[in-house]
């Protein structure tokens, strides 16, 4: 029986999708020549001053409103002081005592029901640069292109109870941030990163245990793996009568373990104090109203609508609403007359598979909702069967032709002509006379074999229902 319960809190850094940096006009583009997107402000030259990117404030307010936070009408930046080469000023401009968003909530639909994860806060800060050690001999290099890129730091209450819940939280958050167009959620490029605070406590206890902070988690899979490992590690320590020490640990993706980085004693004293180079940010009611108006329908609302108005199962609704572009495609198809469940089936089956296999974005996909509706009509009318439909779908995906045209040009129309099928079946029964004997002797499951042969000869076009009926008649 399990003795301990895991207590998990996440701190997520989300790079904002602003064109320019948090405090200067440099581009935030990813992947450029090192140090090509820098200026005296973001490389911390003497005498220069930061100027707040209004767009970043707007984005954070948008995220805050969407996540149910209370927006602080008066908030300010603070300096977090520490020395590191990727931090050109020797301090990071962040928010401390007075963050822009307080509270908030994310609801997760887990297998065993809903869980509600409360947020502590969201604050704005600037990203650091990147130290580069690989390929250098006796020295390291610093790329400051990322220095000053606007970040939102989203902090949860320690209410997450399992690695699965943690990754579900990340997925949900990513989905919302992408809907709001405030973060691209690209974990590989580091635009969405997470640190996890993990501690254990005896089941039933309400006190918090000593926590370890795991840094450097950059994929959904690693969120689960890192936390899983850390829970195991802490359990082992406790089982052996040891004590968990408060420390910062690094997730090593190649070994799948967490490694100690620094203990509490070695922890930085960041000496936070209000940033004197910036005036406090005042969020007016007018601004709140304006930002509110930019918030689109979010995944949770969509799920509700898909289930209640379209009659979709929760599973379908969640899957289709995760990405705004997918949801739009789905809604477009339904609006144009597609049966919601049929559209959902085709999307979750063929469309998603092909998009994945070819790494295509739905926006660039040749199959439009109109294409799919055409295909569904052909299946519903019996003109083609589902199996042929899948072939047609793939063909539409590759060529962008309409289903009807593909069916015609390739002669894929279902054979529902009784006479035509009669002669095909007669031929097969003659050819496989011994099988017919066996069937008659009671080997009933041979029906499948006969149907298969019919399909083979008709290249899958035979109406399966009709084939069954004719076979039944002839074999009696």
């Amino acid at each position, binding site marked *: 029986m399990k003795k301990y319960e895991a207590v998990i809190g996440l701190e997520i850094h989300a790079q904002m999708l602003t064109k320019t940096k948090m405090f200067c006009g440099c581009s935030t583009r990813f992947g450029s020549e090192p140090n090509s997107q820098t200026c005296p402000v973001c490389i911390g030259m*003497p005498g220069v*001053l930061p*100027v707040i990117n209004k767009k970043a404030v707007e984005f954070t307010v948008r995220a805050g409103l969407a996540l149910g936070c209370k927006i602080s009408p008066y908030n300010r930046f603070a300096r977090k002081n520490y020395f590191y080469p990727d931090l*050109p000023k020797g301090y990071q401009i962040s928010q401390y005592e007075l963050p822009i968003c307080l509270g908030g909530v994310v609801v997760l639909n887990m297998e065993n029901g809903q869980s509600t994860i409360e947020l502590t806060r969201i604050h704005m800060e600037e990203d650091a640069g990147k130290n580069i050690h690989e390929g250098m001999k006796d020295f390291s290099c610093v790329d400051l292109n990322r220095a000053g890129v606007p970040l939102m730091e989203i902090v949860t209450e320690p209410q997450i109870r399992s690695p699965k819940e943690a990754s579900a939280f990340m997925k949900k958050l990513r989905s919302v941030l992408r809907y709001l167009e405030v973060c691209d959620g690209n974990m590989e490029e580091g635009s969405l990163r997470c640190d996890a605070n993990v501690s254990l406590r005896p089941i039933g206890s309400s006190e918090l245990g000593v926590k370890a902070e795991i840094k450097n988690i950059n994929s959904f899979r690693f969120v689960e793996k890192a936390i899983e490992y850390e829970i195991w590690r802490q359990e082992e320590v406790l089982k052996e009568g040891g004590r968990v020490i408060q420390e910062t640990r690094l997730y090593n993706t190649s070994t799948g373990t967490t490694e100690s980085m620094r203990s509490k004693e070695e922890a930085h004293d960041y000496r936070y*104090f209000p940033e*004197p180079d910036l005036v406090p940010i005042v969020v007016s009611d007018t601004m709140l109203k304006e930002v509110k108006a930019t918030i689109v329908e979010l995944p949770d609302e969509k799920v509700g609508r898909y289930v209640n108005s379209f009659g979709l199962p929760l599973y379908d609704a969640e899957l289709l609403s995760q990405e705004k572009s997918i949801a739009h495609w789905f809604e477009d198809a339904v609006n144009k007359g597609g049966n919601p469940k049929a559209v959902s089936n085709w999307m979750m089956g063929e469309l998603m598979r092909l998009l994945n296999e070819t790494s295509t974005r739905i926006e660039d996909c040749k199959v439009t909702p109109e294409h799919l509706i055409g295909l569904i009509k052909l299946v519903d009318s019996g003109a083609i069967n589902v199996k042929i439909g899948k072939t047609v779908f793939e063909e539409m995906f590759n060529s962008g032709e309409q289903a009807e045209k593909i069916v015609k040009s390739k002669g894929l129309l279902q054979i529902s002509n009784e006479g035509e099928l009669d002669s095909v079946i007669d031929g097969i029964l003659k050819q496989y006379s011994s099988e017919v004997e066996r069937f008659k002797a009671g080997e009933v499951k041979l029906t499948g074999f006969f149907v298969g042969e019919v399909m083979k000869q008709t290249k899958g076009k035979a109406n399966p229902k009709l084939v069954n009926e004719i076979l039944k008649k002839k074999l009696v």
Partner: protein
Amino acid sequence: MEYFKLNIKEANALLQNKDITVKELTESVFQRIEVVEKTVNAFVTVTTDKAFEMVEELPPYQSSNLFGIPMAIKDNMCTRGIKTTCSSKILANFIPPYESTVTDKLMKSGYILTGKANMDEFAMGSSTENSGFFTTKNPWDTERAPGGSSGGSAAAVCADECIAALGSDTGGSIRQPASFCGVVGLKPTYGRVSRFGLVAFASSLDQIGPITKTVEDSAILLNLISGHDPLDSTSATVNVPDFTSCIGKDIKGLRVGIPSEYFIDGMDSQVEQSVKAAISHIESLGAQIVEISLPHTGYAVATYYILATSEASSNLARFDGIKYGLRVPADDLIDTYMTSRAAGFGTEVKRRIMLGTYALSSGYYDAYYKKAQQVRTLIKHDFDRSFEKVDIIATPTAPTTAFKIGEKVNDPLQMYLSDIFTISVNLAGVPAISLPCGFDQKGLPIGLQLIGKAFDEETILKAAYAYEASTPHHTRRPTL
């Protein structure tokens, strides 16, 4: 003719009338520098080549008050392509690729840069003795300090090595050297002048201002450097009036507050006498003298040294030997930080970084930084309340006249006290001007400080001009 003796207004009149050319004026100033600089040591960098380049590049005369006027700039304001050292070894070879907003404005007005003026390292000090390079001499007595931290700027104006100068004032760094050198120094309201390009000492206190030969010149320069700057979020969006329009207006009925806390035991009696005489003189011009109290004055120095050092400890973190400035290589990263900073910073700068780091440390923050912020608010309220009763406040600028070089350098607390009358003004963010109001028996100048309401530089300029116009002190010049 000795054009270098001219002030901005006089030089401008001659230039406008084509009685002299910019080149003649500039040459005169450089001839003066040639003669006196080796005695005064006002400049870290004398920018002769740059100056004549600027002369060449000037368009035909334009009606700007500053067209062709040779000026000294304190060496903590960034000048593109010109070394900007903050008088620190750590920036000894630093050449900024950008221009500070103030010098950019001066450039657009057609000024000529004569040199980058010496200062206490990173503006931390009251005598220029903390310069990482050398100490500037007071032109009135070269054994004495010119005050600081803008001592180079004040000495350069006093010794006629420029027509005017810019300084910066965090706790008195414009006014105290102006007082010691017998020139006019104005610290504008916090937010009046952009700090972009000013290497920060204490961001919430630093303010750039003019150091000039006359009050009117101060108004002329303030006109040119004031105004909101999109590059400095703390620069105010308030209207900038024409500060010269109040020059020459009478001060009848002006209410002048005299705070009892500024006339204290132990202050130099000749300073006290001169300042009191100056106040009587102002009264004789029609002003009304009102006794007031600024009850939290006694906490100002302590408050200042917590807040200023806290901000400084963070502002100076960027000088780490990694990106620019001095690097003393060592075995690893941490050692490189330590050797570079140990070699690059002087004693006083290190002392203040340590003080500030301590004050901000977890566990001490509430007792020091936070408490100091609260006291700062009380000090500001003192001024707010006083300005309900009076229009300006008159005090001495410094408790003494210029002290001897070496006299206080080993006693930081004594040194800190030389800013005792100027510090509150920075904490409150209000403007103040220092102007000559007499000389002591040694012939050293004494400064009168007039403090105004926030964004009301006009009233202190008006009062200062009225005083200056009816007294001879500003006309006296040292012999060098």
